């Protein structure tokens, strides 16, 4: 992987430095290698390949198995959260219903616990059953340090360090994105479920 990345970046670096105009006047086809490098850069920066387990105790590597080549939603929660989590989870249940059989086929939903020491796969299984969650939605746990690393990488952080330490204050946004097309955005987890489903549709593209 490392070698191929170097090759790609090398090609990008050979892009000629011609032109001192504000912009060239001709239409150009963007270099495919530049996009490949950009995708790799996004991978490096946001998606550490940590090991997670879902509610069925199945093992997932975060980048290779959860995100890569997929359209995903990602949010953070914990099972005993009585702040914003219940509303957000209930909302996402509605989103799953609205997206219907696209979930598990086109879209993969992921909720990652912020309290992995409490939320074992068994606890997560019980939690998912309580909300009548259907297939295509993973509830994920892992090593606490790994989860913290992932949270930091994914930007689910608060710029005020004191607030950032309070798990009850955790970020309630739902990130949605298309890894292959490098389209990433986020919406509030407490927002209107119908509108969240519509928003996710914006990154379900074939281009």
């Amino acid at each position, binding site marked *: 992987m490392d070698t191929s990345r170097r090759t790609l970046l090398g090609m990008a670096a050979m892009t000629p430095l011609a032109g001192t105009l504000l912009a060239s006047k001709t239409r150009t086809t963007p270099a495919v290698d530049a996009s490949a490098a*950009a995708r790799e850069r996004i991978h490096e920066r946001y998606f550490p390949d940590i090991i997670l387990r879902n509610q069925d105790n199945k093992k997932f590597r975060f980048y290779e198995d959860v995100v890569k080549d997929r359209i995903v939603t990602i949010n953070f929660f914990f099972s005993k959260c009585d702040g914003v989590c219940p509303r957000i989870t209930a909302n996402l249940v509605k989103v799953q219903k609205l997206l219907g059989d696209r979930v598990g086929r086109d879209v993969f939903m992921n909720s990652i616990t912020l309290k992995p020491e409490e939320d074992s796969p068994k606890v997560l299984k019980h939690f998912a059953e309580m909300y009548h969650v259907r297939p295509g939605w993973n509830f994920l746990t892992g090593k606490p340090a790994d989860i913290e690393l992932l949270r930091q990488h994914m930007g689910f952080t608060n710029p*005020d360090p004191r607030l950032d330490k309070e798990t009850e204050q955790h970020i309630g946004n739902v990130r949605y994105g298309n890894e292959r097309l490098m389209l990433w955005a986020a919406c509030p987890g407490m927002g209107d479920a119908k509108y969240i489903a519509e928003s996710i549709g914006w990154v379900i593209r074939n281009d």
Partner: protein
Amino acid sequence: MYYNVYGEKVSRARHNEMLNAAKNRRELVAAGLTSRRDLWKMGLLTAGGMLVAKSGLSAQSNSGSPGSFNLCVVGNQAASPPTTPFVEKLVVMPQAMPVASLSPAHTKSPNTAAGEVRSGDDQAFDQFPPQLLYNFVQHTLNVIMSPQLPMQTVWGFDDSNGNATSPGPTYAAHYGVPQLTRNNNALPPASQNGGFGLPSTTTHLHNAHNPSESDGNPCDFYEIGQFCDQHYPNVLAGFSSTNPPNGDINEALSTLWYHDHRVDFTSQNTYKGLLGFYLLFNQFDTGDEGTGFHLPSYPQFDIPLAFADKVFDPKSGLLFFDTFNLDGILGDKFLVNGKIQPFFEVQPRRYRFRLLDTGPSRFYQYFVTDLNNLSQQNPYWLIANDGNLLPNPLQITSVRIGPAERVDIIIDFKPFAGKTIYLENRLRQINGMGPVPPAGFVSGQIECSGNGFSDILPAGQGNLLLQFRVSGTSVSDGSVDPATHPTFYSLPDTTATPRVTRTFKFDRLNGQWSINGQFMNCGAITPRSIFANPPRLQVQQNSVEHWILSNGTGDWTHPIHIHLEEHQILSRTAGLSVATNTAPLSAAERSRKDVSQLHPNERVLLFFRFRDWLGKYPIHCHNVVHEDHAMMGLWNIVPQGDTVLVP
């Protein structure tokens, strides 16, 4: 010169440390060494157990900065490769040129069969038939931002007359000359976006008094191969209400800008280059210093300047956008009109500059700096706020603006003949929360800044944005001397009793940006309609309202923009509930505005007179990262409005 991610100058040694840390970090990830223990061994994990991954790349391994991911630890993130400033000329965007005809011809109703996406029929096409037609095409461009960086693929506008630039060509429009722009989406497929940007667009003409279907509403987006015809009547507010038939001259606009406004993706798409200027002239602000108000002539001495701060990948040198940021994005490279730190050769006379903060999240405070005489104050003239000429010029030594705000200034270079001077940003900002509060301000954000930090950096230690090389040859200057106290427009009266006073609390709950606890929702996008369904509130056409903007987010600063009508700030009040401690408005703020800064723990009372058009418009934070994360709402203008107090 070396900078860190906040745009602060750092030593070369420090910069090398940062680059090394970045390299280490990449190698770690590539090697799969991401466990806490591995990172700790490598010294990349801070005492608080946090890796500074969100904002970039940590140099703490070498410098041993204390604390965790922390506001107090500034300047520990490297991003862009070094670039040499002031080696490239300032580029002035070309003037947009019209086309003879559009094919297919414009139709009053949206031409959906031909691929047009528009929210409804033209409201005033017959009343203001376009005299000029423009065919703007959005497509990719390869540009050089610095000779030391590789060619960058960005998105720009092409006027179909050979002017294809980013920022896009500048419109030189005139009141009384209605025009129509066909905006075409010819962007490449998403797989070629280079890491950010959605090829789905809607072009907003910021601050125009335009009908809803031509406003470029965030929800009125269109896809690759589609287009939208936008009718710009170039008519003064009040033409069909308070001041028929031509409108109120005291509502004249001058410096507007166009930019992509695609809901959820505005920050990415504008950062990628979809923006430009729209100048609006009239019989007073003529663009000719021999007539009217005698302001410096366009385009020779009247220069639009688009400011942007960006980040480039340290490895590839390619433009980078932090799509996972929820707070606000700062860059460490400062661009003016698409070039990093350019120089501009000027004559020793007066120039009008139209300064625009294109965001995404940085505020600027502009000073004129002579590096050979740092103790000298260099006053200049403020003539317009948000593109609205003030009643009279104001002599100032600095002015602060936030994302989307504009100021028009006049600098007289005569005293600097033969010298090299700079336009410098001396405002300190370390994250997306807004400028650092002034020293002594009680604030959680800056509890760590009590030890001598100030919101204003010393002269010469800020960000040198633009270098002026003033030639020594004396020249004629036919423009008005602002010191003679010329009079421009009067401020419209604000004593009318409001029909309703509404409150908008800008808030944040668990990182979710909201207005009055509600989130942006386009509602039913199809079928397209000029009315939002459902709207947050219904304003009655041709009525006066007071709007209270209230900051529920503590230490954050939000630049709040409301489309269609300008407002005037009636008061700024500290605190959120009891009307005490009203701060006096600065002279610069006694003006018409379309973006008002909502400072920490503050309420701002605004006067509005909503006129002329019907349809939907947004209110939103113009820190576009907040905007893209739902800090926006839609309201309608309708014949019979509601009186919802907290929409």
